[in-house]
């Protein structure tokens, strides 16, 4: 795992940016790759890299080149099947000078050009510079595990793993993009391809990009594999269970490939417990696992983590995410994730990777992705329930059926009334592409009430729902009601929030690489063909995955109701005894400085929270979103001060013409 950066001048008249610009870009991302750094520069382009050594520990410094030193690559991530590809390439006459997966990429690129990405199983972003043809090629993995940002400024195309590297380019204008804020306060994150800054973009997951002088060509090579009913497998369930088990074991096997120890996150839920159990059973009985605990029992899952650790006899470490730690680390986390957060959940994961790093572990497996592809989230069950109601909205019988299926949320008469109201929203439009998500998104949009009048004016006429609709693939309408919900959840929330703000960024912030066995694209292709009713049987979520894992896990883990991972907001950010947080970001003066929010309304919100009456999720999202937007503004716009540790460049390939 690493950080990469670079540039290419877009016209013959522009001289490439300089070596010091390139080196500063790399230095600003040292947390991503503290082990080694390197640069390549010629008259038109520059590539820079900082490395966290995991494969080919010695002699794997980047940039790496082909036999003729024509093609140069900087690479962030892992190609898990690089052994297999390498041996085929050697048979076809390619010669290698390192043991790295980076070099495999460059040789397959020689043969197949942009189509090389189709053969890779992994999580990656990379840039290849063809110094003869003067073409730059960028690629990003299927789901966007690894980041890749870009921008055009001063007739030069800049790219980098993190936005802060682009912001170190001298003179680069830093401004907030208002429509992206509108997206964050609707979807919990930006829509694909955008960032909260003007003129800074993200290469879409599953896409490649050619930059050839002034021309850019973006190509999609993969889309989320969800299929309509007629394309689903119709063979018996036991065979599907066996196939999925085999694919998952192989996925874990290749994700354990590393020249360093690999640990695992263990939340106590089905997905991470399943991975830990498979690792222990098939590969490594001494795997170290890591879990988050909370003092508030509503969020805490330590009981289940301990149950798993005991049943597998493994060494499990707990990291307690106290309210104080969450509050104190919020700003640091925002610095790493580079966007506002409507939830505090990324912060405990940052604390967790700190613990992993302190233990000298560089790589961990996590259970992310299973809920999206196997149908684990409540929103899928809600969608089925609302769809069921929509057929006959006035039927008391149908409501009663739903109450039986959701005993825990209909536990009081009062909650029942409001839940009926929730389930009844938008029932008339079953065909709407956002049937599943509209009630939730509309609830999140309530947080936009805090926008200042300037911000409101700036986004007037912008409609996030229309924007989102325009990004859906043409065959989206053929998916069933749960398939549509899954697509939205994966395209927006998984790629742009879970894998980023709650994934790569908070792990790399402490130089830890995370790997996702459930996101192996072979497994996803397969699961995409599994009929929805095997994923959610009745309303039993992840039914087929439970069948795959049940033999390996204690029954309490398999049978427990899914608990969404969340962290406290109100109680932990607003503390009676520590007002520094409020004073740093939420005073009238601070709010006026950024001009993003209405100070009077924020004051009402803070009063409500202090009086103990702001238990609602919307109030929590508003508080977290407002505070973190203020932080983004301070850290990246008003007072941008990147960490630029001293750094030795072990590789310095200077190919500029003299004079």
């Amino acid at each position, binding site marked *: 795992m690493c950080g990469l950066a670079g540039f290419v001048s877009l016209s013959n008249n522009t001289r490439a940016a300089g070596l010091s610009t390139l080196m500063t870009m790399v230095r600003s991302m040292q947390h991503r790759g503290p082990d080694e750094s390197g640069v390549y520069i010629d008259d038109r382009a520059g590539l820079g890299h900082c490395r966290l050594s995991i494969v080919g520990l010695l002699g794997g410094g980047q940039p790496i080149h082909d036999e003729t030193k024509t093609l140069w690559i900087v690479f962030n991530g892992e190609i898990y099947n690089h052994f297999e590809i390498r041996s085929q390439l050697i048979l076809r006459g390619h010669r290698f000078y390192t043991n790295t997966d980076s070099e495999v990429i460059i040789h397959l690129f020689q043969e197949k050009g942009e189509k090389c990405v189709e053969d890779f199983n992994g999580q990656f972003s990379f840039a290849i510079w063809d110094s003869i043809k003067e073409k730059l090629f960028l690629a990003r993995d299927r789901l966007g595990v690894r980041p890749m940002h870009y921008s055009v400024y001063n007739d030069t195309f800049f790219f980098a793993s993190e936005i802060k590297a682009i912001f170190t380019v001298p003179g680069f204008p830093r401004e907030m993009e208002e429509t992206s804020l509108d997206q964050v306060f609707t979807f919990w994150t930006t829509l694909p391809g955008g960032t909260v800054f003007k003129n800074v973009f993200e290469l879409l997951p599953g896409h490649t990009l050619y930059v050839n002088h002034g021309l850019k060509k973006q190509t999609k090579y993969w889309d989320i594999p969800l299929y309509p009913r007629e394309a689903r497998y119709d063979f018996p369930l036991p065979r599907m269970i066996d196939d999925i088990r085999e694919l998952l074991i192989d996925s874990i096997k290749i994700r354990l490939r590393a020249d360093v120890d690999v640990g695992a996150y263990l939340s106590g839920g089905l997905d991470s417990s399943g991975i830990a159990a498979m690792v222990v059973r098939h590969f490594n009985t001494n795997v170290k696992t890591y879990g988050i605990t909370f003092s508030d029992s509503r969020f805490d899952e330590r009981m289940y983590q301990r149950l798993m650790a005991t049943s597998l006899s493994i060494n499990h470490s707990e990291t307690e995410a106290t309210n104080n730690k969450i509050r104190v680390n919020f700003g640091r986390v925002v610095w790493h994730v580079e966007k506002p957060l409507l939830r505090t959940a990324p912060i405990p994961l940052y604390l967790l990777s700190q613990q992993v790093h302190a233990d000298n572990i560089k790589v961990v497996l996590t259970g992310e992705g299973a809920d999206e592809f196997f149908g684990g989230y409540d929103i899928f069950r809600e969608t089925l329930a609302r769809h069921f109601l929509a057929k006959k909205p006035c039927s008391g019988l149908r409501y009663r059926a739903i109450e039986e299926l959701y005993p825990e949320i209909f536990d009081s008469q*009062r909650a029942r009334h409001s839940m009926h109201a929730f389930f009844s929203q938008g029932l008339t439009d079953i065909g709407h592409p956002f049937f599943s998500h509209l009630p939730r998104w509309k609830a999140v949009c309530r947080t936009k009430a805090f926008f200042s009048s300037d911000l409101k004016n700036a986004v007037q006429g912008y409609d996030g729902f229309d924007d989102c609709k325009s990004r859906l693939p043409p065959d989206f309408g053929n998916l069933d009601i749960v398939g549509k919900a899954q697509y939205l959840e994966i395209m927006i929330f998984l790629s742009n929030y879970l894998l980023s703000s709650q994934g790569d960024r908070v792990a790399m912030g402490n130089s830890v690489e995370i790997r996702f066995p459930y996101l192996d694209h072979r497994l996803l292709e397969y699961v995409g063909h599994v009929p929805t009713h095997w994923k959610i049987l009745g309303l039993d979520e992840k039914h087929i995955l439970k069948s795959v894992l049940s033999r390996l896990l204690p029954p309490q883990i398999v049978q427990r109701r899914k608990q969404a991972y969340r962290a406290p907001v109100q109680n932990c950010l607003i503390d009676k005894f520590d007002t520094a947080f409020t004073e740093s970001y939420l005073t009238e003066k601070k709010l006026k400085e950024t001009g993003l929010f209405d100070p009077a*309304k924020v004051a009402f919100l803070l009063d409500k929270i202090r009086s103990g009456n702001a238990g609602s999720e919307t109030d929590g999202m508003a508080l977290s979103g407002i505070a973190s937007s203020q932080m983004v503004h301070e850290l990246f716009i008003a007072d941008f001060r990147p960490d630029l540790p001293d750094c030795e460049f072990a590789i310095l390939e200077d190919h500029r013409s003299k004079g």
Partner: protein
Amino acid sequence: MLLRKLGTHMFDQIWHFIVSNFLFGDAGELKACTPLLESGIIDSTGFLEIIEFLESTFAITIQDHELLPQNLNTIENIVRFIEHKKGRE
């Protein structure tokens, strides 16, 4: 007209509670007849907050069977409902 007629102390208290807790001081287009849930002013948890507020402020107990839209979906309906309830007690 309706507003005026309902411009009682009780009305003001409920209005104030909703404006400060759900609209954060900005009454905007809120009217006595604005449907609170459908217009997005309150969400399902907000609904429970209102019930708690009504019970503690007006010293009443709202029965489960009274949790009906016609009693609670607008400010004017809430006022009517509470007055009716207090009148009965």
